């Protein structure tokens, strides 16, 4: 069976180079290319390639963001490609995730390709997904960055939703629902995980199940038992539970 390959890099010459090297391999079938993270996610969802060469540093959604956006069972075998990132390279080594450093020569890429083929044929993919998961957790902990945009599923394709547009986030089982004006989007994540990556100056947890954009808060009304109600400018009402009261206090005088 021939393997489907996706090459993700924001530079066309860089994609062409990988393509040139993998085309030579008789086991490789279809080759797809994506010039950014968002389109990479769409291609992976639609084509489910067996193997992805994934550039780490890309504008918008980076390589780690692509992996994060995919449910673990949809994650293909990934070979990270990076130009220079001391920290990421150490993390790759620790978690035994495959990576290639730019510039690379034909032999180095062939080696990565052989490893990937071996992993794919022996169906050790589950272990791989877990390793990538631990890698991401590591990287996010070491390099916490404030999310500015979040990848969501639009009607037809994925899009990066600017968080300034989001009014509130609510948890719903295994998902979090983002409300942005009249639209709402579901992402596979937990409020706890998102809360850590949101800008605390802009987003506040008001209860176990909701986070609000402080720019959208119209008023606070006292409720029963020391609870309060947060009224948003679009009229939505959310309970502010006592346990989370202190999160709003830093906005006080």
């Amino acid at each position, binding site marked *: 069976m021939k393997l489907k390959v996706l090459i993700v890099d924001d530079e066309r010459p860089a994609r062409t180079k990988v393509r040139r090297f993998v085309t030579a391999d008789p086991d490789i079938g279809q080759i797809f290319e994506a010039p950014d993270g968002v389109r990479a996610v769409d291609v992976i969802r639609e084509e489910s390639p067996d193997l992805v060469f994934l550039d780490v540093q890309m504008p918008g959604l980076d390589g780690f963001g692509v992996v994060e956006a995919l449910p673990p069972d949809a994650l293909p075998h990934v070979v990270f490609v990076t130009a220079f990132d001391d920290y990421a390279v150490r993390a790759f080594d620790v978690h035994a995730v495959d990576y290639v450093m*730019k*510039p690379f020569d034909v032999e180095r890429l062939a080696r990565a390709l052989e490893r990937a083929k071996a992993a794919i044929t022996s169906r050790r993919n589950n272990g791989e997904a877990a390793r990538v998961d631990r890698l991401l957790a590591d990287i996010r902990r070491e390099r916490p960055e404030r999310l500015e945009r979040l990848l969501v599923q639009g009607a037809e394709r994925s899009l990066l939703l600017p968080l300034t547009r989001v009014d509130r986030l609510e948890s719903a089982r295994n998902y979090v629902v983002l409300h942005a004006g009249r639209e709402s989007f579901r992402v596979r994540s937990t409020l706890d995980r998102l809360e850590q990556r949101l800008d605390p100056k802009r987003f506040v947890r008001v209860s176990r199940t909701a986070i609000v954009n402080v720019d959208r808060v119209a008023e606070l009304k006292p409720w029963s038992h020391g609870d309060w109600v947060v009224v948003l400018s679009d009229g939505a009402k959310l309970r502010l539970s006592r346990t989370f009261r202190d999160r709003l206090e830093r906005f006080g005088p």
Partner: protein
Amino acid sequence: MRLKGWRLAAQWTALFTIVGLLEFSYRYLDVLTRSGSEPLAIKFIEEMTGAYGAAVLLPFAIWVVRRARARGVLGWRLLLVHAAVLPVYSILHTTWNAATRALVFPLVGLGAYDYGRMPLRYAMEFPMDVLGFTLWMGLVYLFDRYSESRDRDVRVAQLETELTRVRLTALEGQLRPHFLFNVLNTISSVMYEDVAAADTMLARLADLLRRTLRRPSGTEVPLAEEIETLELYLDIMRVRFAERLSVAVQVDDAVRDAAVPALVLQPLVENALRHGDPGPGTPARITVRARRDDGRLLLEVEDNGPGLAGTESEAVGKGVGLANTARRLQQLYGERQALTLSNLTGGGLRVAVELPYHAAP
């Protein structure tokens, strides 16, 4: 700030308490030497009120003299200011002495205070005040001169550090490992398709590195030179992002020899490339403009990205390049420059730099 004020006041009071005690010990020993029988309490109150009078009045004199100096009054004219302040100081000091002693003496059971004939008192105290005043103002002058020269040293040192840092950052910017390795990777890719193009890229990269390494110590360069450096950088970026990047550089011929800080444009363009991504499918469009508006030189970099979400200061803080640029402009031109960020009506961000226009040497 408040705390500092209180501490200063406490130190000042302590200083004059010591002065008062020293003067009192002089008078006390004087009485002892003559085996006199004057009550020591009188001497004590007299000396302490005199010292605290100086403590209260001198700050006003110091304020007047410092104000004069700040307005550029120097030399013999500064002496005249002192000479004008001195009689006022002396009269107030003697009046203070009379008033406080008249107040304190009855309070501690020494009865009414007799300061003698006041007109003569004013004359009698004046020579003493000339000595005290001269001494204190001399000390203040030395102190001010010392702290001014220390401030100046600190400022010079700061400027030097900043310049070194800027040079290093510029170097880092072009030698930024990420940039360098990516360019090398692009060259190694292009090489398979077009040897001549790969060769050209290597030459551009070499030129760019050379320019950064041999940059003269001067902080300003002619705009034309700055544009050349920018073009080297852009040539490389155009190959890397051919289909996704279009850059237009529009520079009025009239401003080509205007002086600009070295490497002022590249961080702005880099910032536009990094944060001005318009999203999938749309090529990034960057426009660089330079023109003259009377005595001002305007440099603008526009992108068609998502624009600015947070506040302006947040954005400047985030783009490290922008924060560096803002600080450099501030140090080079003080208040005569401006770096502003504004969202464009059709989407995108404009970073504008305004400088005083002058021709490069």
